[in-house]
């Protein structure tokens, strides 16, 4: 997987988030403060600008640039959290990028978020979409799947993980203030995480 693929990943993610900006914000309005779509849209626009201004030489550089930009431009909870996913992923990623190498590095990124946010599976956060995606990647590698199959499965797992947050009661982040009233709504961060995985699947096709 070449550097261009990773640059394309964030361009596609930016496009999908822009398209779904209002849906993400409405999900956040229901159990948060109605800014998630706006936050990510702003952040990813900045990421694309950064990647265009100084085209990175390596996949790893694309990811660390993206992660750092998200931390520097988004704010809120999702800025540092997404930022550390991509920064850690970038740090751990070796060139040339193989599917197995990406899968291992991605798992490190997910672990970084879990640690930073002290969130576990079932807390109704982005982790509920990211962790299943990571697991799906690992299984695909084990089963010798193609890059394309692997990312399709990761995207599907993230999407299912996001939908699975609907019946959950939030234990982390703003939604946790609602207690039982958080049940019945999809977590906005899990929804945006699914968009990131969908974008990746799209660009490797």
């Amino acid at each position, binding site marked *: 997987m070449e550097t261009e693929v990773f640059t394309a990943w964030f361009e596609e993610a930016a496009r999908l988030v822009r398209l779904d900006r209002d849906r993400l914000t409405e999900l956040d309005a229901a159990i948060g403060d*109605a800014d998630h779509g706006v*936050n990510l849209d702003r952040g990813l626009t900045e990421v694309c600008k950064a990647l265009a201004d100084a085209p990175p030489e390596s996949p790893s550089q694309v990811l660390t640039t993206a992660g750092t930009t998200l931390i520097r431009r988004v704010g809120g909870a999702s*800025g540092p959290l997404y930022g550390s996913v991509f920064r850690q992923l970038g740090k751990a990623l070796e060139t040339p990028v193989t599917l197995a190498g990406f899968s291992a590095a991605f798992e490190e990124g997910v672990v970084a978020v879990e640690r930073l*946010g002290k969130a576990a599976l079932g807390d109704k956060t982005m982790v509920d979409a990211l962790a299943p995606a990571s697991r799906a990647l690992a299984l695909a590698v084990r089963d010798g799947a193609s890059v394309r199959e692997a990312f399709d499965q990761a995207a599907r797992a993230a999407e299912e993980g996001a939908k699975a947050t609907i019946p959950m009661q939030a*234990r*982390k982040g703003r939604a*946790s*203030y609602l*207690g039982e009233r958080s049940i019945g709504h999809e977590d906005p961060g899990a929804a945006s995480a699914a968009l990131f995985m969908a974008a990746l699947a799209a660009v490797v096709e």
Partner: protein
Amino acid sequence: MKKLINTADSVVDDALNGMAAAHPSLRVRDQVVYRAEGPRRGKVGLVSGGGSGHEPLHAGFVGHGMLDAACPGAIFTSPVPDQIIDATRAVNGGAGVLHIVKNYTGDVLNFEMAAELVDGVQVASVLVDDDVAVQDSLYTAGRRGTGATVFVEKMAGALAEAGAPLARVAGVAGEVDERSRSFGIALTSCTTPHAGKPTFDLPESEVELGIGIHGEPGRARVPMASARELAGIAMEAIHGELPLRGDLLVMVNGMGGTPLMELYVVFAEVAAFVKGKGARVSRSLVGNYVTSLDMQGFSVSICLLDDTLTRLWDAPVDTPGLRWGR
């Protein structure tokens, strides 16, 4: 939605320009609001910040006897580490800097990152978590920081102005937080400029109990009731976690869209409740201090005073949002 803005994207910067134009005592640089005169050698610097939309918090509390710098984020979005790092470096007078952080995941993460990244400056930080509407348990992000932030910024600011060392300022700031609790009730939802419609729908016949200051819905909904009953609900919630006794600092805070007259009606009920519990309103604030854009509603914040805290509260303060003694 009708708002006095130019664009949703420019509202925070436009408002900061207005603050700079209105208050020669302030300087705005790279989305950080500073005292115009800059840091004082040997004085502990106080930096706070958080999402915009809570005005006058925080930028309105920058000035003598209170904050040295405020970092406003996007609307309802905590600031980014860069702002906090700039502010921390700029206000350091050699005695270190205290970060006053409201307890929200985003605020905590961004201030933590900034504290790690800023080097050469001694940084302490205090977490404000006074909102009794949220249970402080393993199953939540913990109590939110709301009205008590004003108390912490004012009293810690007075202590820093008096030349106390960082450890002492941080200690008292934590003490003020521990001795303070708040509860908020919304009659309407706020509307963010970007969303363009109310964050939550609230029928004419109902109010939302235990709301946050970001338009987060509360814990429960009840039928609209009289000021006496609503004040009673808020006071019982506070009294349950912080039994009222002795001298109290009482703030009846407007959420942004509620007229002062109504806040005074609520204050009368709050004062009667306090009296009924055998405690005493020793100091008070009535007005818009920690708002949530155009939300209609109020919050009550109470701090159990002692002589030291009373002295710190009474000390001179000169900021756009709070001023006395000079």
